[in-house]
């Protein structure tokens, strides 16, 4: 081709970009206020984070951290649930509260003019929560309904059973952070109130403000709203993230399914792992982009799926690693074989410099897009605060990605990917997929029939 437009056009000179400047200051009560001043923005993003996620609850109360967070938005001593919703929504705010394994969080996104009024309502919600018994019970029932719903959705069904089968029974990560029907059923509003009393305390808490607010203004406003907050929290438990281990195939039977939701993996890495950067680069090469090995092979070469990906889920302790795809029922065994071959290939040899370059260029180049919005900038502070990362985390992030070479990827694959020791779990039509999976001789095959009863009917066969 000799037309002037036949070749990839060159890039122009890049404009330098860095993570927005931020500052932090600890108030006398222990609350750390983080400010990302973005003077050219119309919106303010506020995140209050406490060390009160699922890792801070006891297994006897599994799900209480999540329910306690949700119950916060059902009103204050002064305002009942509906009145509180009206008060926030009149400001254009939808107040949120949620939790994950490593944190519980409350906050909002608002136009700048609603920042102070929103912060006052947030403080009222934290200091004087209503914890109404009727509202708590409603949320508990909704949670039970949602867990029930999740089990009719093939993707969520596979996610839940993957965790249960990867971790041994005594490891908390083997369940959903939101709890199980058995653990949620007996929870009471008194337990939610106690969880809040114990864990929503300022000493380990962080409040992030990103938007057109100066550090001085943020500190003053936060001190006025949260300065009288008191107390100390015990923080999280330490979780020993052991692996069940062993190559096994587990079919979660969902008769009539036209696809199999496939999860292949094992226990992965913790957030603080020394190989964090080489592991996330490796996972991106494997299944983090459209051009990744898994998606190229399973989708673009074979047409088995609409999309395939792989990722670690690093937490304070080692979260799961999985490769995942929803594949046509007919090709399930072939898709498993192909995925295992790709995992084997990653261990067998380092990637070419060219292939790796595409991945590191992506992770480096996408950097400004991640922090484009005020909510994105606030989200960038969260891991720095929660995991106590060095303050230059984002300043050096791109250099650390670029320092990952083929040898580091290869080493990360050998250390953190274990195809021979992987759980192969799929939610699909057992009668349709079992014969070909057994014939493929990839490992012992078990079938779980959730329809027979969820708690103890893991009547493994074969």
């Amino acid at each position, binding site marked *: 081709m000799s037309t002037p437009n036949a070749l990839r056009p060159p890039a122009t000179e890049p404009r330098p970009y860095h993570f927005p400047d931020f500052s932090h200051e600890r108030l006398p009560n222990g609350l750390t206020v983080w400010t990302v001043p973005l003077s050219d923005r119309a919106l303010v993003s506020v995140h209050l984070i406490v060390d009160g996620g699922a890792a801070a609850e006891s297994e006897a109360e599994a799900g209480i951290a999540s329910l306690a967070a949700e119950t916060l938005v059902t009103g204050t001593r002064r305002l009942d649930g509906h009145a509180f919703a009206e008060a926030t929504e009149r400001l254009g705010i939808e107040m949120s509260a949620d939790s994950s394994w490593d944190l519980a969080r409350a906050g909002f996104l608002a136009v700048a003019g609603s920042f102070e009024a929103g912060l006052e309502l947030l403080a009222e919600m934290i200091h004087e929560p209503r914890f109404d018994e009727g509202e708590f019970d409603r949320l508990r029932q909704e949670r039970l309904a949602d867990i029930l719903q999740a089990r009719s959705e093939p993707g969520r069904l596979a996610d839940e059973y993957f965790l249960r089968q990867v971790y041994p029974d005594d490891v908390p990560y083997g369940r959903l952070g939101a709890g199980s029907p058995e653990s949620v059923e007996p929870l009471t509003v008194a337990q939610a109130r106690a969880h809040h009393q114990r864990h929503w305390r300022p000493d380990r808490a962080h409040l992030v403000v990103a938007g057109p607010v100066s550090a001085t203004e943020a500190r003053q406003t936060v001190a006025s709203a949260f300065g009288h907050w008191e107390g100390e929290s015990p923080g999280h438990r330490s979780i020993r993230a052991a692996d069940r281990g062993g190559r096994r195939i587990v079919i979660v039977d969902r008769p009539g399914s036209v696809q199999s939701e496939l999860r292949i993996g094992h226990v992965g890495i913790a957030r603080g792992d020394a190989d964090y950067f080489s592991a996330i680069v490796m996972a991106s090469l494997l299944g983090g982009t459209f051009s990744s090995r898994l998606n190229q092979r399973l989708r673009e070469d074979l047409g088995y799926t609409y999309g395939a990906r792989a990722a670690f889920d690093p937490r304070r302790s080692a979260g799961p690693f999985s490769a995942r795809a929803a594949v046509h029922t007919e090709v399930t065994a072939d898709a498993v074989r192909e995925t295992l071959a790709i995992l084997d290939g990653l261990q067998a040899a380092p990637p070419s410099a060219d292939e790796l370059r595409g991945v590191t260029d992506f992770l480096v180049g996408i950097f400004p897009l991640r*922090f484009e919005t005020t909510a994105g900038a606030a989200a960038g502070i969260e891991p720095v605060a929660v995991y106590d990362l060095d303050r230059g985390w984002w300043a050096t992030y791109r250099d650390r990605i670029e320092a990952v070479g083929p040898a580091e990827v290869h080493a990360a694959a050998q250390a953190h990917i274990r195809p021979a020791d992987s759980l192969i779990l799929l939610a699909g039509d057992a009668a349709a997929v079992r014969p070909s999976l057994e014939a493929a001789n990839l490992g012992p095959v078990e079938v779980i029939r959730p329809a027979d009863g969820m708690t103890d009917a893991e009547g493994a066969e074969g």
Partner: protein
Amino acid sequence: MPQVPIERERLDNGLRVILSEDRRTPIVGVNLWYDVGSRNEERGRTGFAHLFEHMMFQGSANVAKGEHFALIQAAGGTLNASTWTDRTNYFETLPSHELELALWLESDRMASLLPAMTQEKLDNQRDVVKNERRLSVDNQPYGTAEERMQALMWPEGHPYHHSTIGSMEDLSAASMDDVSRFFATYYAPNNAVLTVAGDFDRDAAMARIERHFGPIPANPTLPAPPSGDVPDSLGGEVREVVADQVELPRIHLAYRIPPFGTDAHEAFNILSDVLGTGRASRLYRSLVRERQLAADVAAFVFPWAHGSTALGIWATARPEVSVETLEAQLLAEIDQLSTDGPTDEELARVRTLHAAAVEAGLEQIGERADRISQYACLFDKPDMVNTEVARYDALTAADIRAALGDRISADNRLVLTYVPDEDQTEDGEAAA
């Protein structure tokens, strides 16, 4: 009130270009809307506009299969495309120094897709799209609801009668000849809008747009769009019960309403927010919080612009709640609102929420570009992106009641109820 700069240009070949400069972050959004969607599909070819969208990533004269994704991602960008009834859009957001890369890739496939097309690629993407249908429709609880809604709300042969994902049978029937004809008919500069938003130099950007898109010939014989004309009302309640692999029953309601872009439509948009946006909304308050009949609720309008569109409302029953009880209360809330109209407090609430949501949408360069393209493509009015809030706020309670007319009535209502399929469970157990 958010205002974004809008500058309009038109190339000689008819390509409409909209520029919206914003230098805050060194990123740029490139967004193309082609004025073709599933409403333009021929009989026996449902799903083709979307399948064709997939073929647009399979290479063009100067770009190999997979290279479009690989080059944009290696440049640090995100990208995708989507198809719906009224449009097919393609978009990239990437660091601003790579603007020309996105323009080159988009222009190469608009100019010269066909030399790269092969039967093998079509067969591969047909399989991918069938798996997309299985994932989002066939293997998903309630996944067929939108498709059934369309089939029941618009008559056979109407452009909105069939789903955008299409039927397996029609996907199987799609041929290379279809690909060639569809490309020649609809993928022309005079049938598209190109929006560039974010960090760019205006003159340099226009020069590059002219260089890459200018030489592409127009299609002088664009076909007339299909007529979307239908009566204002369904002319009688339509009911259907679907037994599906679901745990909890869900009631889907739909009403035929005026098309997106009209003031009358905006009244239903406001109505849907009063009903279903936020925890202070009527349906959340009544069905979820107070009566505890529903596990969740939603209300929304479909932004379809040709002839008519739909107001959609759904509620999932809590365990132990009968669908009859839930339906009765759901309809009572809707009917009461349409009779009395919203209160001043409710209007104030949804206006503030709406304005904040518009602000949050426009803060993202990619989303901003998409909204501009939408208004330019559907109405030739990109400035509508700057009047979204004013148009919403202008409607009073009296205006809204007047606009609703008798559209919220049993005669203009679809009630589509999903219930657990007991037979399927028994079959499954029998087979086990």
